[in-house]
């Protein structure tokens, strides 16, 4: 068995051919494999996001996390890029879709790609995952506690994000949703509304809400980390991708 991986910074072409910094990890073996686009959380393209990318490679996938805040300037530290992007209300939806499409194309252009693409996102990336899966042909999507899929952001938030529930009829793939029962963005009621809408539309989805967990329970470098929820969540993610991204 060859479990070696390669990981490092690459450049991918994003929306309107913008040059994006991205972190890629892929197995060194020659087995056909699916690709996973990792959408980082609102605090930006950080070490924890890169660790998630490596985790997918260690499980046999080629994974890439584009730095959605690359346009804030090359050589700028990721936290400064994130603050600048936040001050502008986050990234526009159209740009996000183009960036995910570019990242997916990059994965499909790698050797041993089987053409299957999964998307996963955390926090604001959860909503962006849903948006991408409703805008692009994706094979499996994982929304980890994404807010404002159903509800609008609070008035005066300055966020560009708006509800994307109306896009549900265009959801192109099965959706795995992982949420915390103690989260408010999204709260359990919001998760329930999304589930009911997908039920009504006959869209394949599987939602899990963990007790004693709030927003960010996967974040190992933050006090919000909840090991029980995260361990089970990762198991569900790999089971889900195993079923939908296989050769």
């Amino acid at each position, binding site marked *: 068995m060859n479990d070696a991986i390669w990981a490092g910074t690459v450049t991918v072409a994003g929306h309107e051919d913008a040059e994006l910094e991205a972190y890629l990890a892929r197995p060194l073996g020659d087995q056909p494999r699916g690709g996973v686009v990792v959408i980082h959380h609102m605090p930006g393209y950080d070490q924890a996001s890169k660790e998630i990318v490596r985790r997918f490679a260690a499980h046999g996938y080629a994974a890439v996390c584009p730095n959605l805040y690359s346009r804030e*300037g090359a050589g*700028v530290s990721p936290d400064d890029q994130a*603050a600048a992007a936040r*001050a502008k209300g986050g990234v526009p939806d159209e740009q996000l879709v183009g960036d995910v499409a570019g990242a997916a194309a990059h994965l499909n252009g790698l050797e041993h790609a089987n053409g299957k693409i999964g998307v996963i996102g955390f926090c604001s990336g959860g909503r962006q995952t849903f948006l991408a899966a409703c805008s692009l042909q994706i094979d499996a999507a994982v929304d980890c506690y994404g807010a404002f899929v159903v509800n609008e*952001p*609070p008035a005066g938030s300055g966020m560009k994000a708006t509800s994307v529930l109306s896009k549900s009829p265009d959801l192109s793939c099965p959706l795995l949703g992982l949420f915390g029962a103690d989260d408010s963005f999204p709260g359990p009621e919001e998760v329930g509304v999304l589930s009911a809408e997908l039920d009504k539309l006959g869209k394949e989805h599987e939602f899990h809400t963990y007790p004693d967990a709030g927003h960010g329970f996967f974040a190992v470098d933050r006090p919000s980390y909840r090991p029980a929820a995260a361990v089970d969540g990762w198991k569900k993610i790999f089971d889900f991708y195993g079923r939908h991204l296989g050769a």
Partner: protein
Amino acid sequence: MCTYLTQKIELDGAAKGATGWFTVSDGAVYVDHPFHACHEHTLNIDFTNPAEGPSARVAVELTEEAALALVDAIQKALASAPPGLASGGHARAAS
């Protein structure tokens, strides 16, 4: 939780960041996950100058108690000085 609520303000002053002093023109204040502080949530303040690029930033992450103490200290410091002494209008008029 992410509150996503960002209070944006125009500022007039200066701050010292990673690359030295710069003129501060903008500020953002929000309660959210910190980047560095080891707390689940903090009151975060960004002192910035977008015209000089994203690196012209001084970031502060404070607990709620620390943030309120800072507000109180600012009020007390201003109250102990003659009104207008540190005002932007005063500084310009004097120069």
